[in-house]
Protein backbone atom coordinates (compact mmCIF):
# COMPACT_ATOMS: atom_id res chain seq x y z
CA UNK A 1 0.00 0.00 0.00
CA UNK A 2 1.50 3.32 -1.08
CA UNK A 3 -0.17 6.58 -0.09
CA UNK A 4 0.50 10.12 -1.25
CA UNK A 5 -0.82 13.02 0.81
CA UNK A 6 -1.07 16.29 -1.06
CA UNK A 7 -0.90 19.07 1.52
CA UNK A 8 0.27 22.13 -0.35
CA UNK A 9 -1.18 24.95 1.75
CA UNK A 10 -0.68 23.44 5.18
CA UNK A 11 -4.07 24.58 6.46
CA UNK A 12 -4.99 21.13 7.84
CA UNK A 13 -1.72 20.11 9.43
CA UNK A 14 -3.19 18.13 12.29
CA UNK A 15 -5.26 15.98 9.95
CA UNK A 16 -2.24 15.35 7.73
CA UNK A 17 0.01 14.46 10.69
CA UNK A 18 -2.58 12.10 12.21
CA UNK A 19 -3.62 10.44 8.98
CA UNK A 20 -0.08 9.97 7.68
CA UNK A 21 0.87 8.42 11.03
CA UNK A 22 -2.17 6.16 10.84
CA UNK A 23 -1.27 5.04 7.32
CA UNK A 24 2.30 4.22 8.35
CA UNK A 25 1.07 2.30 11.37
CA UNK A 26 -1.14 0.28 9.02
CA UNK A 27 1.96 -0.71 7.08
CA UNK A 28 1.69 1.77 4.20
CA UNK A 29 4.58 3.58 2.53
CA UNK A 30 3.66 7.23 2.90
CA UNK A 31 4.85 10.40 1.22
CA UNK A 32 3.53 13.85 2.11
CA UNK A 33 4.01 16.53 -0.53
CA UNK A 34 3.91 20.02 0.97
CA UNK A 35 4.14 23.47 -0.57
CA UNK A 36 7.02 24.78 1.53
CA UNK A 37 8.92 22.70 4.05
CA UNK A 38 9.52 25.75 6.25
CA UNK A 39 5.78 25.98 6.90
CA UNK A 40 5.96 22.54 8.53
CA UNK A 41 9.14 23.22 10.51
CA UNK A 42 7.52 22.51 13.89
CA UNK A 43 5.44 19.56 12.73
CA UNK A 44 6.31 16.10 14.02
CA UNK A 45 5.67 13.53 11.33
CA UNK A 46 5.59 9.89 12.33
CA UNK A 47 8.77 7.90 11.67
CA UNK A 48 8.65 6.52 8.15
CA UNK A 49 6.69 9.40 6.63
CA UNK A 50 8.66 10.98 3.77
CA UNK A 51 8.07 14.71 3.41
CA UNK A 52 9.00 16.51 0.22
CA UNK A 53 7.90 19.28 -2.14
CA UNK A 54 6.62 19.22 -5.69
CA UNK A 55 9.61 21.31 -6.73
CA UNK A 56 12.01 18.74 -5.31
CA UNK A 57 10.24 15.93 -7.16
CA UNK A 58 10.15 17.88 -10.41
CA UNK A 59 13.89 18.55 -10.10
CA UNK A 60 14.50 14.81 -10.44
CA UNK A 61 13.52 14.91 -14.13
CA UNK A 62 16.62 14.31 -16.31
CA UNK A 63 16.50 17.63 -18.23
CA UNK A 64 16.23 19.47 -14.93
CA UNK A 65 19.19 17.55 -13.55
CA UNK A 66 21.17 18.43 -16.66
CA UNK A 67 20.17 22.06 -16.22
CA UNK A 68 21.26 21.94 -12.59
CA UNK A 69 24.59 20.41 -13.56
CA UNK A 70 25.22 23.09 -16.18
CA UNK A 71 23.99 26.05 -14.18
CA UNK A 72 25.25 25.12 -10.72
CA UNK A 73 27.45 22.06 -10.41
CA UNK A 74 29.93 22.92 -13.14
CA UNK A 75 30.44 26.52 -11.99
CA UNK A 76 30.84 25.32 -8.41
CA UNK A 77 33.47 22.78 -9.45
CA UNK A 78 35.25 25.46 -11.46
CA UNK A 79 35.15 27.87 -8.53
CA UNK A 80 36.57 25.16 -6.25
CA UNK A 81 39.39 24.40 -8.71
CA UNK A 82 40.27 28.03 -9.34
CA UNK A 83 39.59 29.38 -5.89
CA UNK A 84 42.61 28.12 -4.03
CA UNK A 85 44.88 30.07 -1.74
CA UNK A 86 44.50 33.85 -2.07
CA UNK A 87 41.84 33.46 -4.79
CA UNK A 88 39.45 31.56 -2.52
CA UNK A 89 37.51 34.51 -1.18
CA UNK A 90 37.19 36.16 -4.57
CA UNK A 91 36.06 32.94 -6.24
CA UNK A 92 33.37 32.49 -3.60
CA UNK A 93 32.08 36.01 -4.07
CA UNK A 94 32.00 35.62 -7.85
CA UNK A 95 30.21 32.28 -7.57
CA UNK A 96 27.63 33.69 -5.17
CA UNK A 97 27.05 36.66 -7.41
CA UNK A 98 26.75 34.40 -10.47
CA UNK A 99 24.27 32.04 -8.79
CA UNK A 100 22.09 34.88 -7.59
CA UNK A 101 22.25 37.10 -10.66
CA UNK A 102 22.65 34.70 -13.55
CA UNK A 103 21.89 31.07 -12.68
CA UNK A 104 18.84 31.83 -10.52
CA UNK A 105 17.33 34.13 -13.11
CA UNK A 106 18.01 31.75 -15.98
CA UNK A 107 16.45 28.93 -13.95
CA UNK A 108 13.28 30.84 -13.12
CA UNK A 109 12.80 32.82 -16.32
CA UNK A 110 14.07 30.42 -18.97
CA UNK A 111 14.56 26.84 -17.89
CA UNK A 112 11.49 26.28 -15.70
CA UNK A 113 9.01 27.72 -18.27
CA UNK A 114 10.79 25.93 -21.10
CA UNK A 115 10.86 22.68 -19.17
CA UNK A 116 7.16 22.90 -18.41
CA UNK A 117 6.37 23.68 -22.03
CA UNK A 118 8.46 20.81 -23.41
CA UNK A 119 7.52 18.26 -20.73
CA UNK A 120 4.16 19.37 -19.31
CA UNK A 121 3.61 16.03 -17.60
CA UNK A 122 7.08 15.82 -16.06
CA UNK A 123 5.90 16.86 -12.61
CA UNK A 124 3.14 14.26 -12.58
CA UNK A 125 5.52 11.59 -13.87
CA UNK A 126 8.13 12.44 -11.25
CA UNK A 127 5.54 12.23 -8.48
CA UNK A 128 4.40 8.88 -9.72
CA UNK A 129 7.94 7.60 -10.33
CA UNK A 130 8.63 7.67 -6.60
CA UNK A 131 6.12 4.87 -6.11
CA UNK A 132 6.79 2.77 -9.21
CA UNK A 133 9.58 0.68 -7.75
CA UNK A 134 7.10 -0.71 -5.21
CA UNK A 135 4.15 -1.38 -7.48
CA UNK A 136 2.71 2.09 -8.00
CA UNK A 137 0.69 4.61 -6.09
CA UNK A 138 -2.47 3.20 -4.52
CA UNK A 139 -4.14 6.17 -2.88
CA UNK A 140 -3.98 9.94 -3.29
CA UNK A 141 -5.26 11.80 -0.23
CA UNK A 142 -6.12 15.41 -1.07
CA UNK A 143 -5.65 17.19 2.23
CA UNK A 144 -6.40 20.89 1.81
CA UNK A 145 -8.10 23.36 -0.48
CA UNK A 146 -5.07 24.56 -2.42
CA UNK A 147 -4.12 20.96 -3.17
CA UNK A 148 -7.37 20.37 -5.05
CA UNK A 149 -6.33 21.98 -8.39
CA UNK A 150 -2.94 20.24 -8.27
CA UNK A 151 -4.62 16.90 -7.57
CA UNK A 152 -6.86 17.37 -10.59
CA UNK A 153 -3.79 18.16 -12.73
CA UNK A 154 -1.97 15.07 -11.48
CA UNK A 155 -4.98 12.83 -12.04
CA UNK A 156 -5.44 14.32 -15.52
CA UNK A 157 -1.82 13.56 -16.36
CA UNK A 158 -2.15 10.04 -15.00
CA UNK A 159 -5.43 9.41 -16.85
CA UNK A 160 -5.17 6.45 -19.17
CA UNK A 161 -2.61 4.83 -16.96
CA UNK A 162 -3.71 1.30 -16.21
CA UNK A 163 -3.43 1.63 -12.44
CA UNK A 164 -4.66 5.12 -11.62
CA UNK A 165 -4.73 5.63 -7.85
CA UNK A 166 -7.87 6.04 -5.87
CA UNK A 167 -8.43 9.53 -4.56
CA UNK A 168 -10.13 10.70 -1.38
CA UNK A 169 -10.44 13.72 0.92
CA UNK A 170 -9.28 11.84 3.99
CA UNK A 171 -7.93 8.45 4.93
CA UNK A 172 -10.90 7.59 7.13
CA UNK A 173 -13.24 7.93 4.19
CA UNK A 174 -11.42 5.46 2.01
CA UNK A 175 -8.90 3.43 3.97
CA UNK A 176 -11.01 0.47 5.07
CA UNK A 177 -11.85 -0.68 1.59
CA UNK A 178 -8.52 0.24 0.01
CA UNK A 179 -6.41 -1.39 2.68
CA UNK A 180 -8.39 -4.58 2.58
CA UNK A 181 -8.41 -4.70 -1.20
CA UNK A 182 -4.62 -4.87 -1.42
Amino acid at each position, binding site marked *: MQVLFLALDGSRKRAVLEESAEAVSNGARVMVVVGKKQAWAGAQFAPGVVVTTLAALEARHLPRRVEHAVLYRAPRATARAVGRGPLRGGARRVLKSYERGVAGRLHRKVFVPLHRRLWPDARARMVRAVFEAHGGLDLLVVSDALSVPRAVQLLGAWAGNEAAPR*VCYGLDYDAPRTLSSR
Partner: protein
Amino acid sequence: MVDATAPGCDSMDVYHCDTWVSRMDQHTVEVVEAANRTLAPLAVRSVPTVGGAQLVHLAVTTPRSQQFGPLARNHERQLRAALGGKPIDAPVVHAHVGLPGGWAALQNARPGARVFVTEHATYLDRVLAEPEARALYDELLHRVDGFFAVGDPIRNVLAAEFPHHADKIQQIPNPISFDTQRAAPVTALQRWLFLGGLIPRKGVAWLIEAFAQCHAKDPQLKLTMVGEGELRAQLTERVAELGLSDSVEFLGAVPPAQALTLMREHDLLVHPSRYETFGMTVVEAVAAGMPVLVTRCGGPEETLAGIEEDAGELIDVEENAESISEGYWRLRERFERGLDLRHAQEVLAGRYGYEAVAEAHYRLWFPASAQGRSEGTECAGALD
Protein backbone atom coordinates in the same frame (compact mmCIF):
# COMPACT_ATOMS: atom_id res chain seq x y z
CA MET B 1 -28.04 11.38 16.11
CA VAL B 2 -27.20 8.97 13.28
CA ASP B 3 -26.26 6.20 15.70
CA ALA B 4 -29.62 6.60 17.42
CA THR B 5 -31.89 6.95 14.39
CA ALA B 6 -30.27 4.95 11.58
CA PRO B 7 -31.13 1.50 12.98
CA GLY B 8 -34.85 2.28 12.63
CA CYS B 9 -34.53 3.25 8.96
CA ASP B 10 -34.13 0.94 6.02
CA SER B 11 -31.24 3.06 4.86
CA MET B 12 -29.56 6.31 5.82
CA ASP B 13 -26.88 8.34 4.03
CA VAL B 14 -24.95 10.97 5.94
CA TYR B 15 -23.33 13.79 3.97
CA HIS B 16 -20.55 15.32 6.03
CA CYS B 17 -19.75 18.63 4.32
CA ASP B 18 -16.37 19.51 5.79
CA THR B 19 -15.47 23.21 5.49
CA TRP B 20 -11.84 23.41 4.36
CA VAL B 21 -10.64 26.94 4.99
CA SER B 22 -7.60 28.40 3.26
CA ARG B 23 -6.26 31.86 2.59
CA MET B 24 -7.28 32.51 -1.04
CA ASP B 25 -7.88 35.52 -3.28
CA GLN B 26 -11.03 35.62 -5.40
CA HIS B 27 -9.35 34.17 -8.49
CA THR B 28 -7.92 31.27 -6.48
CA VAL B 29 -11.30 30.66 -4.85
CA GLU B 30 -12.84 30.20 -8.29
CA VAL B 31 -9.99 28.01 -9.57
CA VAL B 32 -10.11 25.80 -6.50
CA GLU B 33 -13.90 25.44 -6.54
CA ALA B 34 -13.86 24.60 -10.26
CA ALA B 35 -11.20 21.96 -9.63
CA ASN B 36 -13.24 20.57 -6.75
CA ARG B 37 -16.21 20.12 -9.08
CA THR B 38 -13.96 17.78 -11.09
CA LEU B 39 -12.44 16.09 -8.07
CA ALA B 40 -15.55 15.55 -5.96
CA PRO B 41 -17.17 12.86 -8.14
CA LEU B 42 -13.87 10.92 -8.00
CA ALA B 43 -13.13 11.47 -4.31
CA VAL B 44 -16.58 11.14 -2.80
CA ARG B 45 -17.62 7.62 -1.89
CA SER B 46 -19.77 6.29 0.85
CA VAL B 47 -18.26 4.25 3.65
CA PRO B 48 -20.08 2.44 6.45
CA THR B 49 -20.59 4.42 9.64
CA VAL B 50 -22.47 4.11 12.93
CA GLY B 51 -25.91 2.57 13.11
CA GLY B 52 -25.56 0.91 9.72
CA ALA B 53 -25.68 4.26 7.90
CA GLN B 54 -23.44 5.22 4.98
CA LEU B 55 -21.14 8.21 5.34
CA VAL B 56 -20.18 10.51 2.48
CA HIS B 57 -17.40 12.97 3.23
CA LEU B 58 -17.18 16.06 1.07
CA ALA B 59 -14.56 18.81 1.31
CA VAL B 60 -16.09 22.25 0.82
CA THR B 61 -13.23 24.53 -0.17
CA THR B 62 -13.71 27.88 1.53
CA PRO B 63 -11.82 31.17 1.67
CA ARG B 64 -10.86 32.44 5.10
CA SER B 65 -13.44 34.68 6.79
CA GLN B 66 -16.23 33.84 4.36
CA GLN B 67 -19.49 35.17 5.78
CA PHE B 68 -22.29 32.77 6.65
CA GLY B 69 -24.54 33.69 3.72
CA PRO B 70 -21.90 33.09 1.03
CA LEU B 71 -20.74 30.05 3.00
CA ALA B 72 -24.24 28.56 2.85
CA ARG B 73 -24.40 29.13 -0.92
CA ASN B 74 -20.89 27.68 -1.22
CA HIS B 75 -22.01 24.49 0.56
CA GLU B 76 -25.09 24.38 -1.65
CA ARG B 77 -23.01 24.56 -4.86
CA GLN B 78 -20.32 22.13 -3.80
CA LEU B 79 -22.80 19.57 -2.47
CA ARG B 80 -24.65 19.79 -5.78
CA ALA B 81 -21.39 19.19 -7.64
CA ALA B 82 -20.62 16.17 -5.49
CA LEU B 83 -24.09 14.82 -6.20
CA GLY B 84 -23.38 15.15 -9.92
CA GLY B 85 -26.03 17.83 -10.28
CA LYS B 86 -28.78 15.49 -9.12
CA PRO B 87 -30.90 16.08 -6.02
CA ILE B 88 -30.41 14.10 -2.82
CA ASP B 89 -32.21 10.84 -3.43
CA ALA B 90 -34.15 10.61 -0.20
CA PRO B 91 -37.74 11.32 0.83
CA VAL B 92 -36.52 12.77 4.13
CA VAL B 93 -33.55 15.08 4.56
CA HIS B 94 -32.52 16.20 8.04
CA ALA B 95 -29.77 18.80 8.31
CA HIS B 96 -27.79 19.99 11.27
CA VAL B 97 -27.41 23.73 11.83
CA GLY B 98 -29.43 26.14 9.71
CA LEU B 99 -26.49 27.69 7.88
CA PRO B 100 -24.68 26.29 6.04
CA GLY B 101 -26.03 22.72 6.38
CA GLY B 102 -29.76 23.42 6.39
CA TRP B 103 -29.59 25.72 3.41
CA ALA B 104 -27.47 23.25 1.40
CA ALA B 105 -29.94 20.47 2.23
CA LEU B 106 -32.98 22.52 1.33
CA GLN B 107 -31.54 23.56 -2.02
CA ASN B 108 -30.44 20.04 -2.93
CA ALA B 109 -33.44 18.05 -1.68
CA ARG B 110 -35.47 16.34 -4.37
CA PRO B 111 -38.95 17.68 -5.20
CA GLY B 112 -41.42 16.43 -2.64
CA ALA B 113 -38.77 15.53 -0.08
CA ARG B 114 -39.47 16.61 3.48
CA VAL B 115 -36.67 18.73 4.90
CA PHE B 116 -35.93 19.16 8.60
CA VAL B 117 -33.28 21.17 10.38
CA THR B 118 -31.93 20.91 13.91
CA GLU B 119 -30.13 23.99 15.17
CA HIS B 120 -27.52 23.75 17.89
CA ALA B 121 -24.91 26.28 16.74
CA THR B 122 -23.35 28.28 19.54
CA TYR B 123 -22.39 30.91 16.92
CA LEU B 124 -26.01 31.60 15.94
CA ASP B 125 -25.79 35.22 17.07
CA ARG B 126 -22.98 35.83 14.57
CA VAL B 127 -25.01 34.20 11.80
CA LEU B 128 -28.02 36.39 12.44
CA ALA B 129 -25.89 39.54 12.65
CA GLU B 130 -25.12 39.25 8.93
CA PRO B 131 -27.94 40.63 6.73
CA GLU B 132 -27.58 38.08 3.91
CA ALA B 133 -27.34 35.17 6.31
CA ARG B 134 -30.34 36.47 8.24
CA ALA B 135 -32.38 36.65 5.04
CA LEU B 136 -31.41 33.08 4.11
CA TYR B 137 -32.31 31.94 7.61
CA ASP B 138 -35.72 33.57 7.31
CA GLU B 139 -36.33 31.80 4.00
CA LEU B 140 -35.05 28.54 5.47
CA LEU B 141 -37.50 28.75 8.35
CA HIS B 142 -40.29 29.48 5.90
CA ARG B 143 -39.56 26.55 3.57
CA VAL B 144 -38.52 23.65 5.82
CA ASP B 145 -41.06 21.08 6.93
CA GLY B 146 -39.81 21.10 10.50
CA PHE B 147 -37.32 23.15 12.46
CA PHE B 148 -35.89 22.15 15.81
CA ALA B 149 -33.75 23.74 18.48
CA VAL B 150 -31.84 21.52 20.90
CA GLY B 151 -32.80 23.68 23.85
CA ASP B 152 -34.44 26.87 25.06
CA PRO B 153 -31.39 29.13 24.53
CA ILE B 154 -31.50 28.52 20.78
CA ARG B 155 -35.28 28.54 20.54
CA ASN B 156 -35.54 31.83 22.43
CA VAL B 157 -33.02 33.54 20.16
CA LEU B 158 -34.77 32.38 17.00
CA ALA B 159 -38.26 33.15 18.28
CA ALA B 160 -37.15 36.68 19.13
CA GLU B 161 -35.44 37.18 15.76
CA PHE B 162 -38.20 35.61 13.68
CA PRO B 163 -41.45 36.04 15.61
CA HIS B 164 -43.44 35.21 12.47
CA HIS B 165 -41.88 31.71 12.55
CA ALA B 166 -42.02 31.25 16.32
CA ASP B 167 -44.71 28.55 16.11
CA LYS B 168 -42.65 26.53 13.69
CA ILE B 169 -39.63 26.28 15.98
CA GLN B 170 -39.97 23.11 18.01
CA GLN B 171 -37.56 21.42 20.35
CA ILE B 172 -35.73 18.14 20.00
CA PRO B 173 -32.72 17.08 22.06
CA ASN B 174 -29.41 15.60 21.02
CA PRO B 175 -29.37 11.85 21.68
CA ILE B 176 -26.93 10.42 24.21
CA SER B 177 -25.92 6.78 24.65
CA PHE B 178 -26.44 5.35 28.12
CA ASP B 179 -25.25 1.87 27.13
CA THR B 180 -21.71 1.75 28.52
CA GLN B 181 -21.23 2.06 32.26
CA ARG B 182 -17.99 2.59 34.13
CA ALA B 183 -16.35 -0.44 35.72
CA ALA B 184 -16.58 0.94 39.27
CA PRO B 185 -18.55 3.86 40.67
CA VAL B 186 -16.82 7.11 41.60
CA THR B 187 -15.66 7.00 45.22
CA ALA B 188 -13.84 10.34 45.55
CA LEU B 189 -13.95 13.53 43.53
CA GLN B 190 -10.21 13.72 42.94
CA ARG B 191 -9.67 13.29 39.20
CA TRP B 192 -11.18 16.30 37.48
CA LEU B 193 -11.88 16.28 33.77
CA PHE B 194 -12.52 19.16 31.40
CA LEU B 195 -13.70 18.39 27.85
CA GLY B 196 -14.11 21.17 25.32
CA GLY B 197 -12.39 23.92 23.42
CA LEU B 198 -9.63 25.81 25.20
CA ILE B 199 -11.32 29.10 24.38
CA PRO B 200 -12.57 32.01 26.51
CA ARG B 201 -16.25 30.98 26.19
CA LYS B 202 -15.51 27.74 28.03
CA GLY B 203 -14.25 29.50 31.16
CA VAL B 204 -11.03 27.47 31.15
CA ALA B 205 -8.85 30.25 32.59
CA TRP B 206 -11.07 30.38 35.69
CA LEU B 207 -11.01 26.59 35.84
CA ILE B 208 -7.21 26.55 36.15
CA GLU B 209 -7.32 29.17 38.91
CA ALA B 210 -10.08 27.31 40.74
CA PHE B 211 -8.19 24.05 40.46
CA ALA B 212 -5.13 25.75 41.96
CA GLN B 213 -7.22 26.94 44.91
CA CYS B 214 -8.64 23.47 45.50
CA HIS B 215 -5.28 21.76 44.96
CA ALA B 216 -3.79 23.93 47.70
CA LYS B 217 -6.22 22.27 50.13
CA ASP B 218 -6.01 18.78 48.65
CA PRO B 219 -2.73 18.04 46.81
CA GLN B 220 -4.10 14.68 45.65
CA LEU B 221 -6.32 16.43 43.08
CA LYS B 222 -5.58 15.94 39.38
CA LEU B 223 -6.99 17.76 36.36
CA THR B 224 -7.08 16.51 32.78
CA MET B 225 -7.76 19.12 30.12
CA VAL B 226 -9.04 17.63 26.86
CA GLY B 227 -9.38 19.86 23.83
CA GLU B 228 -7.54 22.37 21.74
CA GLY B 229 -7.87 26.10 21.32
CA GLU B 230 -6.34 29.52 21.30
CA LEU B 231 -5.72 29.52 25.07
CA ARG B 232 -3.68 26.33 25.25
CA ALA B 233 -0.25 27.97 25.37
CA GLN B 234 -1.43 30.57 27.89
CA LEU B 235 -3.02 27.93 30.11
CA THR B 236 0.03 25.68 29.96
CA GLU B 237 2.20 28.61 30.98
CA ARG B 238 -0.13 29.51 33.85
CA VAL B 239 -0.14 25.92 35.10
CA ALA B 240 3.66 25.99 35.15
CA GLU B 241 3.65 29.33 37.00
CA LEU B 242 1.34 27.84 39.60
CA GLY B 243 3.68 24.85 40.02
CA LEU B 244 0.93 22.47 38.95
CA SER B 245 2.57 20.83 35.95
CA ASP B 246 2.56 17.46 37.70
CA SER B 247 -1.14 17.71 38.52
CA VAL B 248 -2.59 19.17 35.32
CA GLU B 249 -2.36 17.31 32.03
CA PHE B 250 -3.24 18.71 28.60
CA LEU B 251 -4.22 15.91 26.23
CA GLY B 252 -5.20 18.02 23.21
CA ALA B 253 -8.14 16.97 21.06
CA VAL B 254 -9.19 13.33 21.24
CA PRO B 255 -11.67 11.26 19.21
CA PRO B 256 -15.21 10.99 20.67
CA ALA B 257 -14.76 7.37 21.73
CA GLN B 258 -11.63 8.24 23.70
CA ALA B 259 -13.44 11.16 25.32
CA LEU B 260 -16.11 8.76 26.60
CA THR B 261 -13.41 6.41 27.88
CA LEU B 262 -11.79 9.32 29.72
CA MET B 263 -15.12 10.11 31.35
CA ARG B 264 -15.20 6.61 32.76
CA GLU B 265 -11.65 7.05 34.10
CA HIS B 266 -12.23 10.35 35.92
CA ASP B 267 -14.27 11.32 38.96
CA LEU B 268 -15.75 14.70 38.11
CA LEU B 269 -16.59 16.68 35.00
CA VAL B 270 -15.97 20.39 35.54
CA HIS B 271 -17.77 22.42 32.91
CA PRO B 272 -17.41 26.14 33.62
CA SER B 273 -18.71 27.34 30.25
CA ARG B 274 -20.03 30.90 29.84
CA TYR B 275 -22.69 29.83 27.30
CA GLU B 276 -23.99 26.51 25.96
CA THR B 277 -27.02 25.81 23.83
CA PHE B 278 -27.43 22.25 25.13
CA GLY B 279 -24.44 20.99 27.07
CA MET B 280 -24.09 17.57 25.52
CA THR B 281 -20.85 16.87 27.41
CA VAL B 282 -22.68 17.27 30.70
CA VAL B 283 -25.31 14.67 29.80
CA GLU B 284 -22.62 12.34 28.44
CA ALA B 285 -20.74 12.66 31.72
CA VAL B 286 -23.80 11.68 33.77
CA ALA B 287 -24.40 8.83 31.32
CA ALA B 288 -20.83 7.70 32.04
CA GLY B 289 -21.60 7.67 35.79
CA MET B 290 -19.70 10.83 36.53
CA PRO B 291 -20.85 13.70 38.78
CA VAL B 292 -20.74 17.14 37.19
CA LEU B 293 -19.81 20.62 38.40
CA VAL B 294 -21.38 22.84 35.79
CA THR B 295 -22.34 26.45 35.25
CA ARG B 296 -25.90 27.66 34.63
CA CYS B 297 -24.87 28.79 31.16
CA GLY B 298 -28.04 28.20 29.15
CA GLY B 299 -28.31 24.54 28.18
CA PRO B 300 -27.14 22.62 31.27
CA GLU B 301 -29.74 23.98 33.70
CA GLU B 302 -32.38 22.87 31.21
CA THR B 303 -30.92 19.43 30.54
CA LEU B 304 -30.41 18.78 34.26
CA ALA B 305 -33.73 20.30 35.34
CA GLY B 306 -35.14 18.43 38.34
CA ILE B 307 -32.03 16.29 38.89
CA GLU B 308 -29.46 18.98 39.68
CA GLU B 309 -28.81 17.63 43.19
CA ASP B 310 -28.64 14.03 41.99
CA ALA B 311 -26.16 14.71 39.17
CA GLY B 312 -23.83 17.16 40.85
CA GLU B 313 -23.66 20.87 41.47
CA LEU B 314 -24.77 23.81 39.37
CA ILE B 315 -23.00 27.13 39.83
CA ASP B 316 -23.67 30.58 38.45
CA VAL B 317 -21.60 32.03 35.62
CA GLU B 318 -19.29 34.41 37.43
CA GLU B 319 -16.06 35.98 36.32
CA ASN B 320 -14.01 34.56 39.16
CA ALA B 321 -12.45 31.29 40.26
CA GLU B 322 -14.12 31.20 43.67
CA SER B 323 -17.54 30.31 42.28
CA ILE B 324 -16.00 27.13 40.84
CA SER B 325 -13.82 26.23 43.82
CA GLU B 326 -16.59 26.91 46.34
CA GLY B 327 -18.99 24.88 44.18
CA TYR B 328 -16.47 22.04 44.23
CA TRP B 329 -16.24 21.97 48.02
CA ARG B 330 -20.04 22.08 48.35
CA LEU B 331 -20.32 19.19 45.94
CA ARG B 332 -17.56 17.26 47.68
CA GLU B 333 -19.31 17.64 51.01
CA ARG B 334 -22.60 16.45 49.53
CA PHE B 335 -20.87 13.66 47.61
CA GLU B 336 -19.71 12.09 50.85
CA ARG B 337 -23.37 11.84 51.88
CA GLY B 338 -24.22 10.39 48.47
CA LEU B 339 -25.59 11.70 45.18
CA ASP B 340 -28.17 9.76 43.22
CA LEU B 341 -26.45 9.36 39.87
CA ARG B 342 -28.50 6.31 39.00
CA HIS B 343 -31.71 8.30 39.28
CA ALA B 344 -30.14 11.10 37.23
CA GLN B 345 -29.19 8.59 34.56
CA GLU B 346 -32.71 7.14 34.42
CA VAL B 347 -34.25 10.58 34.03
CA LEU B 348 -31.76 11.66 31.38
CA ALA B 349 -32.11 8.40 29.46
CA GLY B 350 -35.84 9.08 29.27
CA ARG B 351 -35.17 12.55 27.88
CA TYR B 352 -32.06 12.08 25.77
CA GLY B 353 -31.50 8.35 25.41
CA TYR B 354 -31.20 6.90 21.92
CA GLU B 355 -34.61 5.27 22.01
CA ALA B 356 -36.46 8.38 23.16
CA VAL B 357 -34.79 10.72 20.69
CA ALA B 358 -35.03 8.23 17.81
CA GLU B 359 -38.77 7.81 18.37
CA ALA B 360 -39.19 11.58 18.36
CA HIS B 361 -37.44 11.74 14.99
CA TYR B 362 -39.44 8.86 13.50
CA ARG B 363 -42.71 10.55 14.43
CA LEU B 364 -41.55 13.62 12.52
CA TRP B 365 -40.02 11.89 9.55
CA PHE B 366 -42.65 9.24 8.94
CA PRO B 367 -45.93 10.52 10.36
CA ALA B 368 -48.04 8.25 8.17
CA SER B 369 -46.33 5.13 9.46
CA ALA B 370 -45.58 6.27 12.98
CA GLN B 371 -47.80 3.53 14.40
CA GLY B 372 -46.09 0.56 12.81
CA ARG B 373 -43.39 2.19 10.71
CA SER B 374 -43.95 -0.48 8.11
CA GLU B 375 -43.47 1.82 5.17
CA GLY B 376 -41.81 5.08 4.28
CA THR B 377 -38.58 4.35 6.13
CA GLU B 378 -36.73 3.10 3.12
CA CYS B 379 -34.49 6.07 2.72
CA ALA B 380 -33.65 8.94 5.00
CA GLY B 381 -30.92 11.37 4.11
CA ALA B 382 -29.09 13.27 6.77
CA LEU B 383 -26.81 16.21 6.26
CA ASP B 384 -24.28 16.98 8.93
